[in-house]
């Protein structure tokens, strides 16, 4: 047995409550070191001693949710956590996430709504949970419910100063898919103002300018999107695509060729 393993075995010999606290800390430490599998192992060992620990079950579920190869396994601990602590909003939230991740849309919505009811004043929860409800409702084809949820999420997001541009962008995508361009662009502008480092907003604005035939504006917005794209392959490609076409239209063929060349070099 390795040294952390010995320490952990000693922890397990203590009372269940102490073991729970220390296991959670050890799991957090492992997670911070990037050892997610080890963190899950620690929590599972602690659950042998304290199988009804809601905190341990939630932690196991949360850790598994973040592992694409094992996310399906998160269902069991999270279901147990919800059964043991039906008033624990966080447990419902994680179970909602699991359900959403695994195309269980009805369960995703019901768990998220349950969690919302348990956290009436929690603006952060309203932001996250309404986004989940919006995504799942969109998938079930309930556009009205999706729209209402995304809108509620945006309101919460704005109350917090728009810290989560990705959630707001989910609403933009929803609106664009329904050809509600004007409503989508209002949020895009908000994002550009409040979260100027969020590249997808600039890209959407560039596409909008392209649809309006505003070549110079398209180029300006797409250049900004490109600068913010980082390593996001599809965002980079989309920005280069727009720029190649726009510069070609503007007669700036050298610049168009540069972007064209990038696409050709990054085809797959």
């Amino acid at each position, binding site marked *: 047995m390795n040294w952390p393993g010995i320490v952990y075995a000693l922890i397990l010999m203590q009372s269940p409550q102490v073991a729970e606290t220390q296991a959670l800390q050890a799991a957090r430490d492992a997670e911070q070191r990037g050892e997610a599998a080890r963190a899950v192992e620690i929590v599972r060992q602690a659950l042998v001693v304290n199988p009804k620990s809601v905190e341990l079950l939630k932690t196991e579920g949360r850790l598994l949710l973040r592992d694409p190869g094992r996310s399906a396994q998160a269902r069991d601990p999270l279901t147990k956590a919800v059964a043991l602590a039906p008033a624990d909003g966080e447990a419902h939230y994680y179970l909602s996430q699991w359900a959403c991740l695994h195309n269980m849309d009805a369960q995703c919505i019901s768990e998220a709504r349950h969690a919302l009811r348990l956290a009436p004043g929690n603006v952060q929860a309203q932001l996250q949970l309404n986004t989940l409800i919006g995504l799942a409702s969109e998938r079930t084809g309930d556009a009205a419910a999706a729209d209402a949820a995304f809108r509620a999420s945006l309101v919460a997001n704005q109350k917090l100063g728009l810290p989560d541009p990705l959630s707001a962008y989910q609403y933009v995508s929803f609106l664009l*898919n329904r050809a509600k361009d004007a409503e989508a662009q209002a949020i895009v502008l908000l994002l550009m103002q409040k979260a100027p480092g969020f590249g997808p907003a600039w890209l959407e604005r560039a596409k909008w300018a392209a649809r309006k035939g505003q070549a110079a504006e398209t180029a300006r917005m797409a250049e900004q999107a490109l600068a913010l794209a980082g390593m996001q392959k599809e965002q980079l490609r989309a920005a280069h695509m727009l720029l190649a076409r726009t510069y070609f239209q503007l007669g700036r063929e050298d610049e168009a060729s540069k972007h064209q060349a990038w696409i050709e070099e990054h085809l797959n």
Partner: protein
Amino acid sequence: MILLLLPSLFSGEGVGFIRFEETAAKAGLSFRLQNGQSGQRHQIETMVGGVAALDYDRDGRIDLFFVNGARIPSLLKERQGFENRLYHNEGNGRFLDVTVRAGVAGEGYGMGVAVGDFDNDGFPDLYVAGVNRNQLLRNRGDGTFEDVTAKSGATGIAPGDRKRWAVGAGFFDYDNDGDLDLFVLQYVDWQLEKEPVCVSNGVRAFCHPNSYRPLPNLLYRNNGDGTFSDVSETSGIGRLPGKGMGVAFADYDGDGWTDIFVSNDTFRNFLFRNKGDGTFAEAAVLMGVAFNEHGKSMAGMGVDFRDVDNDGRPDIVQTGMVGDTFPLYRNGVSGFEDHTSASGLAALTARLTAWGVGLCDFDNDGWKDLFTANGSILDNAREVENLPDRLPLKVFRNQAGRFTDAGAPGMGEARVHRGAAFADFDGDGRIDVAVSALNDVPKLLLNRTTGGGHWLLVDLEGTRSNRDGLGAVVTVTAGGRKFTNHATTSVGYLSASDRRVHFGLGTAARAERVEIRWPGGGRQTLENVAADRVLKVKQQP
């Protein structure tokens, strides 16, 4: 009284309520598409199979051909049930199985089918693409076919190579010399003994296409003497490996030379611009159809390449998998624009996985609607990803360029649909659909739309151009509106549709003008043409 009035609220003048009647069993279509499922989730199992709509005996009624799989691991049609099937349309709603008499049962693990009269004798021939065997079946004109694959040279094997996995093919005249050439669509480098084992959520599943190497496609030039030459390399077609799932032809730039769009699976699409000198330039990136507007190479499957917005230029619609949305690339002045969201298709298709696809005017209102043959990739989709494997068929009604779910009734239960072929099987001027379904019997959807518009079905016969007239662009002016379509059999996923060119004319009972631009040059114009009939047009010498 109020109830009696309701249909008119939905229909309006010249606008029908799209509906179908599923008649496969009644018609005697007992074919069953069998993928030889092994439990090992071999990639080939999920890909079959194509359907063809053709009038093989030239009796004026459209017959049906179904491609079938084979036993695994032998990849041979070892027992009854794996044969390809040809059904003769008896004209009374019934189809008669003529496979044995026609000699088209086939060999090997079949995938897709192309139809074209490659020898210009007036009888449509078949090319069956497959995993281990491609077959060129020449129609003798007496109800039988002969296998001329070896003699013709169109074996689907590149010089110095072994047989690779072909999924489909298409006939078109790329050099405008008056005979049909052959494009063979290849998927990935797959070998049974090297099949990787893939697991998703702890369950054995079909592998992602990234597990396999892409393959270049093949192009055969028709020598006009019953043989073909492999021009894949010299034409440029064979220089680009891809993961082809669909091929469609149209002259997108109006230069008189037929171009090629290849729908690739999780790989950028190809748009081969025909330079008119026997070579092609790959222009998908430049023209804006290599990726969708999000910069994503989607899981491209079937494709149709027709004018959706009635501006006279062919547009492109592709099917894909759940989450992709099915892109509509609108052909504009300086390339294509991703029109998926604005057309309404993004929201309508986001949760679908589709294979067969066709742009047809089902209600004859003058706007081509969109049909998609839906079904999961995974036969264990419920187990792997909590998604249904069986999906319903869909028709999206085109209302001046905006699509809505037509909610068309009568298309039968959800199945794992694959190929689809489009034709007017019962000769009533409404486009019907034949659909294959994995490990299931096919569907024959007879169009029962009521209150639809007038129509015209243009049956071309080339004299200087290829006899099928494939590649001919037909523009109909009726009621002051202009409609454009072109002759092609390469439609959708691994399938072939009727070569005749269909038009819905809305409320116009006559066409002021029908103009044909033949491949290879030459225009022909007819004036004051009565609607609601098959219009036979022979190319003027």
